[in-house]
Structures are given as C-alpha cells and as structure tokens.
C-alpha cells in the first residue's frame, strides 16, 4: 500500500495524502486505494488555479472588500485577562505598511524547562518588566534647609524585583550625571548635591529626572502576563524587545515570537516575518469574525517579503520596485516618477496590467494572456 502512496508523492501535496491515510478504512484493497488516490488526484488537478489567473487582484479584493466591515476601535480586550492590542483595520494597515514602529508591541515568550512548568513564573515575569525608579518610590521629600532629598522606597515592590536599596542607589548613581551623593538606610535613599552653585535648583530638577531612571528589567516591556497555554506557562508581554529578551537563559530562543515585523526581520530573518504577517493578519480577522482564505494572505505576505527584505505595500515599498514607469506613476506622485524615468532614459516594456489599460491594449492576464502561434506560408 505504501508503494501506491509513494507513486503519488509528487502529484498530491503531503497534507492531502496524510488526510487520505488517516481516513482510509482499515480493510481496504490495494485496488481501491489506488482508485481513491486517483480520484483525489483528479479532483486536486481540477481545482488548480489556471495559468493567467489574476490571483493577485483576487487576493487584493478578498482582503480589501471586507475592510469596510472591520471596526476602527483601536483597542480590543481579547477576553478579560488579555492585554490591550491594536486590532481591526488599524492593525491590518499597520501590518501591510511594514511599519518600523507599531502601535502596541507584544511578545510571547516561551520558557525552557523547568520554568515552563510554572517554576517561579510570577517572579520571572516581573523581572522582565521594565521598571523605572518611579515604580519603586513611595514618597519623595525635599528638605530645603539641609538641601537633602529623601526617597522612601516601596518595600513590597523591591522584594518582587529582588532588589535592595543600596543596589538601586548604585544604579541611580550610574544613571544620573555627577553631582550628587547617595546614602542608603533601611528602605530610604538620601541624596545630597555636591555642587555648590544653586544646589536647590539642581535638586528640584533631579526630582523629576530621577523618576525616569531605568532600574531593571527589559527596556520597552511595560506589562507582563504569565499565561498557561496547554500545559506550559508562557509569558505574554506588552512591548517588544526580542534582542534583550534573548539574553536571558530561561527563554526558549526557538519559540519566542513578537508581533513587531521589523524586529522579527532583524533577528529571525525574512522568512519569520512572512509567517508573522500571516499569523497576525489571521489573528485580526479572527477577532473580527471575517472569513478570508489563507492563500490570499499568504500571497500578500510573500509579495512583501519576496525581495529578501520586508517591503510595505506603499509607494516606498512594493510599488517603488515595479519595473514599469507607468505602473508606478499611476499609483502616487506621477510627476516624480516620470521625471526620474526621463533622466535615466527608462524604457517601459508594458508588461503589466495598468500600462496596457492606459494605452488600450489587451491586458496580459486571464484571457488576454494566450497568444496564437501559427505557421505562415
């Protein structure tokens, strides 16, 4: 029987063969297996997209048409306990734009054993979160007479972050330019300026500045959420910073995923971006209850990544790469494109759709594609 399957290996995609294997009844004669496979193959061949089929435009239509049905509400609470993420039309636009900065970054950090089984999960999560001085301050008081600023720290927060006051003082010393002396007491940091001129002014400035000093965690991560997926724990973060995340050895580097296309490209390469585009678009469509076949999204993702780098669907990305002057001009900034074409003496060979529409010639897709070859006498 496996021989019969082998015979169809290159003819039918593996996933379909697999499905046949699973659904095949226990007792099935070879002849019948052959018959089934032959029928599956026939049906598969019949469903092929024909040469000339304008799959690009069909894909654009399939994604563009339900665009009007999507909501504009930027934020969405996916369930009660999930994070705020940009969804709906704005997110789709963001993805297809290939933007470098996105609205709400998000990472899913899978963990290595034993952490993935839930060991210290809360603590681990908390240690990732970017914390600024502000988060640890309970109270700041300034003593004008002896020119001293006293910060009392929030002890419970310190404990979670596994920090001591003297360590914080050290970080502060590093984070702030010279001119201050730090002293620590139980849960209290005292700061005195060393400079002589206008120390009071300095100290007030410092009060604001000190709140912003980065203390611990990973930069850019504003929120963390340990979630149970199946039977393992995953940390979902708001804010994305794969590079710093990978420095931690409890992270499973093979499964970390971010919704930031640009970052994914930088670290995991363009193939990863392609998959992220598909996943992210599907995720949005799912929340909106819109049904689009994955092929259309794959095509867009492939177009965006085919050059080896991520290109947005705009005049700086895909459209810029088009070989035809008129096709570029018909999108945006036509005068600029025509002038540039003139300078380089560009030639438009009229290979794509829009130029041929412009000059009233048959468009080279669909029924406009085939030509007739005939012998002349």
């Amino acid at each position, binding site marked *: 029987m496996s021989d019969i399957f082998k015979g169809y290996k290159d003819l039918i995609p593996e996933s379909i063969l697999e499905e046949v294997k699973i659904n095949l009844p226990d007792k099935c004669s070879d002849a*019948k297996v052959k018959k089934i496979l032959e029928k599956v193959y026939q049906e598969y061949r019949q469903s092929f997209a024909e040469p000339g089929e304008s799959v690009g435009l069909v894909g*654009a239509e399939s994604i563009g048409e339900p665009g009007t049905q999507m909501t504009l509400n930027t934020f969405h609470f996916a369930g009660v306990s999930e994070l705020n993420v940009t969804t709906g*039309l704005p997110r789709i636009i963001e993805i297809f734009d290939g933007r470098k900065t996105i609205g709400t970054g998000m990472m899913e950090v899978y963990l290595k054993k034993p952490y993935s089984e839930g060991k210290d999960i809360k603590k681990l999560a908390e240690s990732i979160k970017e914390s600024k001085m502000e988060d640890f301050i309970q109270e700041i008081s300034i003593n004008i007479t002896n020119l001293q600023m006293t910060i009392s720290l929030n002890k419970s927060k310190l404990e979670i972050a596994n920090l001591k006051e003297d360590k914080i003082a050290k970080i502060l010393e590093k984070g702030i330019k010279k001119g201050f002396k730090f002293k620590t007491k139980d849960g209290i940091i005292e700061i005195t300026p060393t400079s002589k001129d206008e120390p009071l002014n300095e100290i007030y400035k410092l009060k604001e500045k000190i709140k912003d000093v980065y203390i611990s965690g990973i930069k850019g991560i504003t929120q963390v959420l340990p979630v149970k997926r199946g039977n393992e724990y995953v940390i979902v973060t708001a804010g994305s910073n794969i590079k710093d995340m990978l420095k931690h050895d409890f992270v499973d580097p093979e499964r970390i995923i971010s919704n930031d296309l640009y970052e994914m490209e930088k670290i995991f390469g363009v193939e990863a971006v392609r998959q992220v585009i598909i996943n992210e678009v599907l995720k949005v469509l799912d929340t909106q209850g819109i049904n689009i*076949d994955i092929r259309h999204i794959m095509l867009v993702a492939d177009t965006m990544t085919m050059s080896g780098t991520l290109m947005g669907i705009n005049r700086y990305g895909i459209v810029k790469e088009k070989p035809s002057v008129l096709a570029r001009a018909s999108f945006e900034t036509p005068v600029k494109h025509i002038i540039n074409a003139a300078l*380089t003496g560009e030639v438009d060979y009229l*290979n794509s759709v829009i130029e041929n529409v412009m000059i009233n010639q048959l468009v080279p897709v669909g029924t406009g594609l085939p030509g007739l070859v005939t012998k002349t006498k």
Partner: protein
Amino acid sequence: MEEIRPTYKKIHSITFGVMSPKFIKEMASAKIVTPELYDKEGYPVVGGLMDVRLGVIDPGLKCKTCGHKLKECPGHFGHIELARPVIHIKFVKEILDLLRSTCRSCGRILVPSDKIKKHVGELEKIGAELGLAERRKRVAEIMVSLKTITKCPHCKESQLKIIIEKPTTYIEDDKRLSPIEIRTRLERIPDDDLEVFGMNPKAVRPEWMVLTVLGIPPVTMRPSITLESGERSEDDLTHKLGDIVRINQRLFENINAGAPEIIIEDLWDLLQYHVTTFFDNEVAQLPPARHRSGEPLKTITARIKSKEGRIRHNLAGKRTNFSARTVISPDPKLNINEVGVPQVIAMKLTVPERLTEWNMKYLKEFIQRGAETYPGANYILRPDGKRKKITDETKEQLLEELQPGFIVERHLMNGDIALFNRQPSLHRMSMMCHRVRVLPGLTFRLNPAVCAPYNADFDGDEMNLHIPQTEEARAEAEILMEVQTQLISPRYGLSIIGCNQDAISGNYLLTRFMDIPREQAIDLLASVGITEFKKLPHKKIVSGKEVFSVIIPDNFDFDGVSRSVPSDNPDHTVKIRNGQLLSGVMDKSNLGEGSGLLLRNIHKQYGRDEMVEILGRIYRLGIEVLLKYGFTAKFADADLSEASTVQINKVIEEAYVDVNNMIKEYKEGNLELLPGRSMKETLELRILERLNKARNEAGKIIADNADQRSDTMTMVRSGARGNLINLAQMGACVGQQALRGERINKGFNRRTISAFKKDDLGPEAHGFIKSGFNKGLRPHEMFFMAMTGRDSLMDTALRTPKSGYLYRRLANALQDIKVEYDYTVRDAAGKIVQFAYGEDSMDVSKSEGGKINVKQIINSVMEK
C-alpha cells in the same frame, strides 16, 4: 471598410527621456512668434498660439499640417525660441547636484578618473541585481560624498560653494549664476561622467534641463470653449503660453534695442516665472499664476497628478457608451441571472447585429418598426462606416439599400447579454453578467438573492448596466462573468449567493410545520414554475417536506444539520435521499448566503446552471409560501407576559445587586484583581460582564416564554432576520451601551449626566438601559443610546476612506501577480512570488474552501 478593425499594430515599449532643443524644433510644425490668438474675422493668426498648423478645434477648418479635420487631426506641437535660457523647474534639484559635483572650470566630475570606472561598474551591478530604485539610492549617496570636495582632481581648480535660492536661483559664493552660465557649465560635462550621476547620456544631456527652446503643446490639448455670447474662453494652458510668448517677445525687443541690463534682468526673471508656472503652478516659493477671478491656473503638473489628473482619471479609468443607470427594485419572479430592464432603456440601448442573407428578413422587421416602437432599431451602420439614424423619413430608403454586411443596431431584447454593476465595485462579483428581461416600469429589477454579492438594498440604490457590443466581449461576459459562474466566492470558497430573508422564513415554515392539501401544494408549486407533479405523493394532505422535495433533483443525497432545531428533535439532522427530504428543516444553515452547504453540494453535483435554476425555485417557493399563508412581524410579537416581565425584572434586579456589591468591594479596596489590571479596570470589566449577562438572561427568558410560532420568532429561529438579542431589546431591556469597549464614562466632571450624583458608579449612571424599545426609553437612556449611536456613525465615516486607501494600495501592489503556465506565481517582472499558488496551486473558488473533500471521495469509492 470595416468599422471594427483588428489590432494590427501593438505598442511594444515606451521610452522616456528629456527633449533636446533640436528634437523640439524637429518635432514642431510651427514657430510661435506672437501672443495674438485670432484676427478680426476670428480666424487663427498664423504664428499665434492657435495656429492651424498646431491642429484644429473648430469644425470646418482643416489642419495645415496633416490636412485632417476636427477629431481626425491628433494635433501637432509647435515651439518658441526663448530669448534667454530658463531653468526647467522640474530639474532644479538635478541641476544643483550636477553643479555641485562637477568642476566649475573643466566640467569633469569631482572624482579621479580611475574611480569613475569603479563607480559606473558598481552602479551597473546594483541596477542589474537590485533594480533601479536601489541604483538611484546609490547615486544619491555618491552625490552627497562629492559635496565636500573642494579641489578638482582633474584640473586642480578649487571649487566654490553653490547654494540654491528657491525656486530657481543658483548662487555661487554670493554671486548669482545666470542660466546661461549654468548651461555652459552643464555642456562641459562629458557623457562618460554622466553615468555616475545615474543619467543616461542617450536620453538626456544635462544642458537640456536649461530650456532654450520651449515646446508648445498642440491646440487639441488645450481647446477653447465658445460661450453662448459668442465669446471664446481659452484654456488655462493657452493663457499661460500667451504670457510666455508676450514676455519672450518683449525680452527680444529690449535686447535688440540695447536696453539697460536691469530691465533685461527683470524681464528675464519674469520669463522664468512664467515658464516655471507653465510647468507647475504649485511651486512652494512662487505665488501661483491666477485668472482674473483669482482662481489659480491649472497647468501641466496639475493636469497630470492626483485622482482627477490625466493618469488616474483618463488613462487608468475610462468612460463608456452603451450604458444605463437607474434605481433598482426587487423582483423574486425573475431568474437569478436575469435583470429587468425598463422598456424606455431597452429602446435606447442597442445591440449591433450584422446583416446576412439569412437574417435579412428578421432584421428588416426591426427597421420597419423604427426607433419609436419596441422592438425596433435605432441606427444602421453601412460598411463604409457611415451611421444612419432610422426615422420615419429615412426608413423606406434605408430598407431599400440594405444589403448583407450592413450592421443594424437593434433594441435590447429578452435574453441579450448585459453587465450589471453596483458601486463601490469592491470585488469581482460587483460586476456580473445578466440576461436582459425587458419589463414595464422605470427601474432595474433584480432577484433579491443577488443582493449579497452586489451589497445592494432597495432604499434608493442605483445600479449601472452595460451592453457589450462585440461578439468577443459578449462571449467573455457570458463565460467568465455570468451570475452562475460567480456563485462561489473566491474569498472563502463558499456560496455567496443563497436565500435570504423571506425565502428562508418561507422554506422554514414549509418544511417544519406545514401540512397542506394536495391542491394547494400544486398551486404553490405551479406558481414557482413547476409543471410536473409526479413527485408529489398522491394523498389528500401532503407535508411541507414533500412539497419541498419536488423542487430538488431526483437523485440528490445530502446530510446536514438544521441549526434552528434543537438537537433532540429528529428534524435537527437534514437527510435527503434520492431527492426526498426525509428529515430536517430548511433554514439559514442550509440555504443561507455564505453558509448554505446544501447549495454548495448541489453546485458540485449538478453544475452551476442547474444550481441557479434550483436556487431560483427554492427562493420563489419560500416567498410563495409566505404570500399564500400570510406572514406579519407585528408589534405584539415583542409583548411580554406578566410572568416573564416579573422574571426579567428579577434578573435585572439581581444584576443591580451584584454590581452594587462589586462597587462596594471596590470602594473598600477588596475587589479581587484580574491579572494585569488595575482596580478600576477590573471593576469596569466585571460590571460590563455582569450586565451583559443580565441582558442575555433576559433574552433567554423571552426566547423561552414568547410565542414560539409568532412570525417574529420564526424569522429569528430560521435565521432569516434578527436575533434573540434584538427581541430582548424590544421586549425587555436594551442593555449596556458600550463606548469604545467600555461603559460610558465621558461627560461632566465625575459623572456622565447631571441627572446623577457625582461618583455614582451604578449601572444606570453609566449607560445601562433598563427599558426596552417596546416600552420606550427614559430621557437619560435615550441620551446614552444616542451617544453610542453617534460613535458608531463616526466610526463608519472614518473607516470608509481608510479601508478604501488600503484596498487601492493592495490592488496596485498585487495587480500584475498572476499564475504562469508553469503554475508558478509571478509578478510583472517575471520574479517568482510563490512556486505554487497558496503552496498547493489550488484555486479557492474551485475547491471547498481550498480543501479536497477526502472523506467524500473515500466514501464514494468504498460504497461502489
């Protein structure tokens, strides 16, 4: 002879370049020397801007260049010699770059000779490997690197700093460079060095960017309009050219007369201004040239760019004849692939039919009837291309001279092919091919089943109709675009056309509840168009299922589910064997748009033509049932019994108590936090959750207690229209109004409306509407509802342009991606996007949602 000529020439390619003065002069058919347009008799002045050598726009005149008349002459360019050279505004940046990176004395690029070759080689490589865009980027980088070089590596001349004073003045070391000087410098740059600048010496010499000769566009490009008063109103371009010619002449005169330098300079600047605004009237630093009325002139750049410009408006989008537009209205009696066309329109739109020996008699009858009686004919086309209108006077003569080879434009008739379209045309199903059905009235009629693909309703929507005029066009429309070819959406591979609204309710009632006398059944089926009643069992009373079975094919088998029926009822499973509906109910899950698996299977088994036929019958059957037995969604359907009112009030009361408890907990700080949320957020979310639950419970009470056989309930149950929440909102309680996913929290300081106390966190103060529509809303409730209503209105208004732009970008980026003969997916440049479409080459609309139904194949083989 032939009016439809075969394409015998095809444009192979278009080369872009900059026109040289020599080229302009050679191309020009007239030299323009005077700003005057017409002489006293109103005849175009020779050497003026409307010179007849530039083409004709008046009827009766003949072009002096090509001898053709109006509409035949394509127009010809002219030229003027500029007294002094001027900068071309569109090349200002390029000129600056060139001046900066070439030597001021020898004209060589500021790169040592050995390095030039290296640069050129590098550019060529980038151009070949990465494309023109990357090459341009590299050129820009080279240019920047040359800015700082102060000494020419070729002649050792030290270089001065050149700055630009926008828009067109170049200043070198505080001294102004005149265009003459610039031109001489640009002339000195050798061809070989140009390549480093990314310029192609074959297409452009840098000195051509400084104009010495200006091309004058043909008059056909700038036609004048004759006003009612007999006055002529000239085109904006003509005005602008007039300015240029006038100043140019003055400049010539002043130079010849030896006028002082300062006057010449002033005139020169003025000429520069006019030439600049001729090309672009929206240059940032220049005041735009205006009409006397103060309206800015629309010059060349403005003509090309933007949505209303030449490219997007005229070149990428075309207008058409043989089309009609009017309001649409529904007509379920039409077939799904038909369109009802008003007779008045059918008498205006025509189909050309070629006269042969065999149809001579047939077509003569049309001519005999003339243009005024339907079905007649409007025009006759003679083989020499002459078009004759058929009127009572010409009729006799035309009939006499009629011979094979003539073309008769006859009125639109039943069965003709037409394209039907509704904007916005967002997908290919927005324009489908229908068969014409000429009807009385003034609106287009369509079967309501095709509303879904067009996204049409009948609240005043208008649609367009086009009549293809050639056999080729008709064949393509019929084979590729007819409604039955578009049944399966390529978006998700399911049927997009199905039953809706009354058709679903009707079939639901019929197949679930009805038993009717055989006579009535026959009556019903006859009104659907059935004439053969063999399949209907011979008994006094027949069931609705038996009636339904008559209209499905005899050998059809189907298994499915009726979602409208609870799973403990035998009617939950749909079972069709040999064309008999044995159990199950026809509801939205079987017949509806985008879900009807029954339809999908009929489509697969019997093909599209048969499916359209069957769908039409099912649709009509549903409507006829309602028509014959009555169906009214009435006010009382939402009425509540005393008991359920009490029950609902109790549910809401309970919710209030729970919410108040939560608020209490919140105020005491005891509320259990949701992960990742603050106390306040947790409260809001939990209240929202609790109140929605209350509303759903109320809906459930209604669903259980309301009259199950009421017509409103029938619609809800069958999935035809409405849902339980709608019913609950009418009968019991509208529920929580959500604004941006939260309760309503906006308004005054610490409260939403002044009717509430400050800091009231209770349900009613934040948009919970306790009343139902049936009872009426209280003032504050109505206000909250208006808030969310306005918000959703705004959302729609903001979303439409955004999604429209996304769509345009997607379409533009992907439009030339197609499947090649080797089944790879490639773009216009032939680059492979995918090796197999969607990784398995399968077309979504040709398979079941992109999948092969393996189980079905196995079953069919095993059964045999």
